[in-house]
């Protein structure tokens, strides 16, 4: 059930930003739902497992987008590692801290996307990169109070429960 749920959430994270969030976009900025989901998963898993989820999610997104293969694979792997590292040090039950964590990790992830885009030869001005990074990070952070309580409950004692992390 856990894997089916995560698969459904992955697919929704791919579909919704281009459809539903097109209508809720703010000056063209949409949330990065797959990055948000990867952060949540990594915060509730051990490092190797979180890293594999990050790599898998990133590779899935790269194949879905059909270009710049490796961009999101690498980005979401870094995002997963950073999320795990922060979750080990900061109090995960506190939603305010989690909101800040999501903002921070999303910003790092988006900066990495921008860096890899520049490396791939795309043309971005620094001001636009700044606006996009802050915009997407803010949007993801705003979604935390709406989504995290449910996801966290589910990871701790619901259908998404990950035993190796909570039974040690």
């Amino acid at each position: 059930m856990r894997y089916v749920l995560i698969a459904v959430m992955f697919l929704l994270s791919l579909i919704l930003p281009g459809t539903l969030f097109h209508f809720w976009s703010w000056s063209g900025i949409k949330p990065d739902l797959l990055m948000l989901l990867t952060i949540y998963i990594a915060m509730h898993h051990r490092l190797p497992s979180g890293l594999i989820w990050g790599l898998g999610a990133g590779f899935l997104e790269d194949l879905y987008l059909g270009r710049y293969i490796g961009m999101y694979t690498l980005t979401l792997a870094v995002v997963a590692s950073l999320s795990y590292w922060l979750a080990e040090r900061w109090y995960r039950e506190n939603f305010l801290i989690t909101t800040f964590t999501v903002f921070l990790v999303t910003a790092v992830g988006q900066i990495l996307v921008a860096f890899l885009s520049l490396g791939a030869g795309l043309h971005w001005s620094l001001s636009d990169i700044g606006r996009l990074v802050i915009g997407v990070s803010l949007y993801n952070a705003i979604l935390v109070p709406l989504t995290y309580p449910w996801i966290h409950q589910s990871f701790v004692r619901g259908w998404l429960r990950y035993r190796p992390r909570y039974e040690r």
Partner: protein
Amino acid sequence: MGKRVNVTGIAVLVFFLLLGVLITIRYTGLGSNFFNPVGGVMQRILSPLEQPILRIGNVIRDNTRAVWDFREVSRQNEELLKKVDQLTGDNIKLKTEILAGMRYSVLDQGQFRSPTLEKYEKIGASVVNRNPTTWFRTITLNRGRQDGVATNDPVIGDLGLVGKIVSVTPTTSEVLLILDGEGQVSALVRGSTGNSTFGIVQGNYKRGSRLTSEGNLQMLFRREDSINVGDLVLTSGLGGVYPKDVPIGQVKEIRLDPSGLLKTAYIQPLVNFDSIEEVYIIKIVGEK
């Protein structure tokens, strides 16, 4: 005793990993057309789910626009009422002068017809998704390789140019919008005197309006070029991707470069990219 960490080894590994990813990214960029069966299957499975969501969203937005943007709609309504009288009087003149200048005629359905496009086969397509990331301006259409669509086929809307196909799966295709800075278009500005000035239209990154729906196209000219606000911008047909004389937009603003040698024209696209739902794919490449 703690484990020894080989820092040099990790640094080398990270370096080669990063290098590998950068090379892969470079070779699988826009229009690279690499073999991606998994992506194709995902698009095929997900596009039937995406289309209804997008359609429902469009219906809700269209029916509630007056509620959310009441002040804006009210202002627009007042402006439109004032313009009706003026436009009614100018209607015949506009049809003969401007439309003749643009070399296309407005049909009953409000769709333009260019003599250059007549010779190509066109396929109607619906928008089923938009790019899920904020970084690219692309839309996904419900027509693919099975319908004869090929990479680099131009895409037009009811009023003008939309973009070009950058990737194709058997059942879907992805369009890079002209708003995206990677989708540059060879264009010409046709002034009221009939003179044409050539240039490149590109997505506007530098004015801060990259993220808004207004004025997202720009074109660079020499100072002495005769360009005026209100001039029409059309495809030039050069470059081999887009056919000639497809309308792109209208010059909204002209600004001199600080050096005084160049000037930038900001162009308002004719197509409303935020609400675009149906387009035509022109089978130029697919027919070859």
